[in-house]
């Protein structure tokens, strides 16, 4: 196959980027998209041009490190991660446009590499159960109905890639945050802190500069792990009930 690539090149966070066009010859349909870029990079280095920088690690669809906005879709045309996208999806002679995730909260570091540490900070704000190592009950002392456990699992399958943000015209992080909130809101282990958790995580999400959710569902359509927008509805319920009950506590408790 022969593929023409229009790739976003940007030297660093402060410089202005631009598209550059490359032709990749001898692309095999068995290559993954990243392997196609590897081969292109080798040829660039041979020509004395710096290789295209992109994030990746596991290359098996689980670490969430790969990104790339391909022909207008995060992770490309299929509902999978970029590392699992194969060239047989494309046609010989096709032109493919490759951009970084675009979002204010995900600044570009270089070429196609962006900074997603905002996601870490959201989780640091409350995405945990407060338990120390040791001193916990026997695992089977916390029975959890299978249905609830499965639902929590569906939310826990999120790999933190950020495609939902890249897919959203508002660059909202609601799908990601709601998946994290849902997992612990569904499970009994997370109940003690559910109110503070959702409040703090949403506050951090807003502080990071992610946009508002206007229910376009583009996130769900592009999420490689099929995280459902029902999580967003659940998080909204969690959030409003938390706000309402904290208000009650404040009024009822008098000043302290």
């Amino acid at each position, binding site marked *: 196959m022969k593929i023409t690539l229009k790739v976003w090149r940007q030297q*660093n966070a402060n410089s202005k980027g631009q598209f550059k066009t490359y032709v990749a010859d001898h692309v*095999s349909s*068995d*290559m*993954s998209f*990243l*392997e*196609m870029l*590897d*081969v292109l990079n080798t040829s660039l*280095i*041979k020509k*004395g041009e*710096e*290789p295209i920088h992109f994030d*990746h690690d*596991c*290359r*098996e669809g*689980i*670490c*969430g490190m790969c990104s790339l906005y391909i022909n207008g879709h995060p992770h490309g045309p299929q509902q*999978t991660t970029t590392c*699992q996208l*194969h060239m047989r999806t494309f046609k010989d002679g096709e032109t493919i446009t490759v951009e970084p995730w675009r979002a204010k909260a995900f600044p570009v*570091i*270089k070429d196609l*590499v962006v*900074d*997603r*540490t905002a996601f*870490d900070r959201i*989780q*640091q*704000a409350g*995405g*945990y*159960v*407060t*338990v*120390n*190592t*040791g001193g*916990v*009950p026997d*695992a*089977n002392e*916390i*029975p*959890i109905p*299978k249905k609830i*456990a499965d639902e*929590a*699992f569906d939310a826990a*399958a999120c790999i*933190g890639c950020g495609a939902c943000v890249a897919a959203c015209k508002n660059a909202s992080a609601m799908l990601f945050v709601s998946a994290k909130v849902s*997992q*612990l809101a569904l*499970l009994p*282990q997370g109940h003690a802190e559910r109110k503070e958790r959702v409040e703090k995580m949403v506050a951090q999400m807003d502080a990071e500069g992610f946009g508002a959710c206007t229910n376009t569902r583009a996130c769900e359509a592009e999420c490689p792990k099929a995280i459902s927008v029902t999580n967003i509805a659940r998080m909204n319920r969690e959030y409003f009930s938390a706000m309402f009950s904290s208000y009650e506590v404040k009024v009822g408790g008098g000043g302290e």
Partner: protein
Amino acid sequence: MKLESKVPEGPLAEKWTKHKFNLKLVNPANKRKYEVIVVGTGLAGASAAASLGELGYNVKAFCFQDSPRRAHSIAAQGGINAAKNYQNDGDSVYRLFYDTIKGGDYRAREANVYRLAEVSVNIIDQCVAQGVPFAREYGGLLANRSFGGAQVSRTFYARGQTGQQLLLGAYSALNRQIANGKVKMYSRTEMLDVVVVDGKARGIITRDLVTGKIESHSAHAVLLCTGGYGNVFYLSTNAKGSNVTAAWRAHKKGALFGNPCFTQIHPTCIPVSGDHQSKLTLMSESLRNDGRVWVPKVAHKGLKAKEAKSITETDRDYFLERKYPSFGNLVPRDVASRNAKMMCDEGRGVGATGLAVFLDFADAIKRDGKDTIAAKYGNLFDMYKQITGDDPYEMPMMIFPAVHYTMGGLWVDYNLMTTVPGLYSLGEANFSDHGANRLGASALMQGLADGYFVIPYTIGDYLANIGWNDKVGTDHPVFKEAINAVNSSVSKLLSIKGKKTVDEFHRELGLTMWEYCGMSRNAEGLKTAKKKIQELKNEFWQNVNILGSASELNMELEKAGRVADFIELGELMVDDALNRAESCGGHFREESQTPDGEALRKDDEFTYASAWQYQGENQAEVLHKEELRFENVKLTQRSYK
């Protein structure tokens, strides 16, 4: 140098309890006066950093990825073992210990393995309390399965992504400590050296991968939780970034390297499709419960999966069922891998490259129905189809062995301390618990055991003994020297401006390792490999081409440093494989086999762990031996006939 394992006296089952009591404690009010560095944030690193932060130590944690959650533990599929005996099927701490020691072909330390089995039960409790969504039964209790041929169902799992769920649990505990200010997290930061002053580890030198800044960090102790070195083979199931650099540089600063030649080669991976191949993908070994492995009886060059049906039953060789009637397709990983290689060596391999065997579900589908098979393996079948374009419901899968895990690593004593005081190694990065071969679902167990339940106790003893005053600041001349040395090696790499890319060198190294130090090894081949690796090393330092600068994100530069270390490690692996003239676990020496071609262990000569000591650039390393004493189990030859 004398290797002291520090295994406590007393009966096996009481060692750890007694040891914990005998270890010194750090006064709670003094804990905040200590600083600990944790390198790597996989299961071992994240659990250690979180637990130490909870205890009150000041922790700095480092990972080269953009987030601690991406460490390669995330990719483990199968599950995690624990001797809970929830199934009432006869499991116990002793049985898990026994299976692990035997599975490791009697090349691990009894006391360590027993402790691992002992704390395995606490791990499950801890993870559930954090909200890890393990699989459950309808009654709401935890589900288990039997894994990798185990006789009991002791494996806990979370669909096909147990690693991700456990790591997210440890990551959440880590996040809590980051929010509390007890852990300071440095992501996109790579460790490039350990600083040793007066014989003790005092800190590390790092490179900020985004700005290129080389920095020093001092601490009372340093923990290397940096994973395995399977990428020395270039192609492996490891993540692209997984590397040996932290461990190797520690080795060069005095930490002995244990059993470097012990690598695990996993039988069920998707075969290589061409020269562009950048990594290999594992298909869970649970597939062998229902899939039948075969090749044609006579060679059919280039046989495709969709043509498999044209080979009649009588013309097929179900070689594992034929050779191992009692275990059949469920023989251990090393046996399955070696036999697949033998078929391909005979020219009976399938697929375009001839380096693959079939894993066929046709009989299982006929017997149980497509729906039942889909319920068990649906996601794996989908993944296979996504990668290869072939549909396993319609035709057999093609599989081939791939490097998956390294049992070798930094030598550590019972306290997980390396031969450098104050320098510890946890998880896959150390050599400790799996001997010559690791059982399925035991890697996650070891990572979390080390991080949650061992190091929090053992490090206290060291810290209490040295006292919080015993610390060296980053203004010490040794730190300055170390910074200069790292800076100059970085500039040296950039100045070579040769003709070959880093990947080209890495691939060449990988081919040599795979050919001569892979599934089957012999003295002559290993000697050839040693020569080739030495030549490659010379060429690398004269002919590698790295563009760009050191003061910004430069992924070629990162890779170059790692490949340089892999080349040196490769040579040590070959030395170790050459020295160990026996077959054991994943290490098969062709000179040491039974008349019917099975692995032959030589207990009289080789019941020891090898520990290699670095002697300086291009000098032969010195071998030390830790004799392994078995007081509780009797050494037997494995047999799966």
